């Protein structure tokens, strides 16, 4: 259960990002979690909601996108999603494919809404 620690790291990042938008409020945060990241998306979502509650960040929607394991076939150049640990290329059948993603734990995007003008300076 390290999802709370990860949720707090997300809030740290948001604090830094928020400085770029002095006249805006972060309304939505998109995250990408790879299936090999060792992080449970449901649990992370729960922790993010709990961590953000009662903070100055106000209501923030967290959207977590799962990212499957991908491999690249160096023989035919195809990138494909690995299912059931089968890393053979579905096109040419080659078994010597290389890892090409699926361990991400990333902040993908923010959605920022403009503040009311009178909110400035408070």
């Amino acid at each position, binding site marked *: 259960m390290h999802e709370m620690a990860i949720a707090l790291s997300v809030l740290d990042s948001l604090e830094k990002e928020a400085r770029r938008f002095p006249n805006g409020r972060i309304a939505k945060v998109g995250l990408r979690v790879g299936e*090999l990241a060792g992080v449970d998306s449901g649990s992370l979502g729960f922790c993010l909601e709990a961590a953000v509650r009662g903070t100055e960040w106000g209501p923030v929607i967290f959207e977590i996108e799962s990212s499957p394991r991908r491999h690249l076939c160096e023989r035919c150049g195809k990138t494909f999603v690995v299912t059931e640990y089968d890393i053979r290329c579905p096109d040419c059948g080659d078994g010597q494919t290389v890892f090409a993603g699926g361990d991400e734990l990333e902040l993908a995007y923010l959605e920022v*809404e403009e503040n009311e003008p009178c909110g400035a300076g408070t």
Partner: protein
Amino acid sequence: MNRVGLERKVLSENDRLAGELRARMAENDILCLNLISSPGAGKTSLLERTLERLEPGARVAVLTGDIQTDNDAARLKRYGFPVRQITTGGTCHLDARMIERGLAGWRLEALDLLFIENVGNLVCPSSYDLGEAAKVVILSVAEGDDKPLKYPSIFFKSELMIVNKTDLLPYVPFDLASAQRNARSVHPAMDILRVSCSTGEGLADWLVWLRARRQRIPRAPVSAV
């Protein structure tokens, strides 16, 4: 509403610190290994059997992590090498900041090998880079041989799997071939060793692996003079 792309790692601060640690290890020509397993799989026993096989002057140190107690450090200090306990006080994994603090005051130029014994847990430690050259996962035969499929992240990220407690194989339903197959289905290029910390079987292979691995650590770039 204004959408802004970020594409930034969530653990970027940890990764930054881990990068600094990795650079310090390279500058000092240290092989740093991060040992990970579930509780009771034999991380501390493996370290004890390793330390007792090294010559007294070996340049080795251990950072050992636990949620509570300094029992492991007390066990490991008996072998005469520098050992420090990191007590996380509830946190289920070590992070790069804890390693940085744990190394404070140690002369890294006096080391060739640094073992980090992570908190017993197959999940959370897999997310945190500690600046190690390689992660090593230990699976004991008292556990299930399907652990690599249940916890793919740590088996994917570990360079070596050590199957420990092989002396118990006659008494448990653990299928060694199946465990190896499962590990390689998650991580095809994984190295696999079989050891028993009770009988000593396989430990010589582990020492050979360590020596060979140390030859492959990335050296710090030589600065132009």
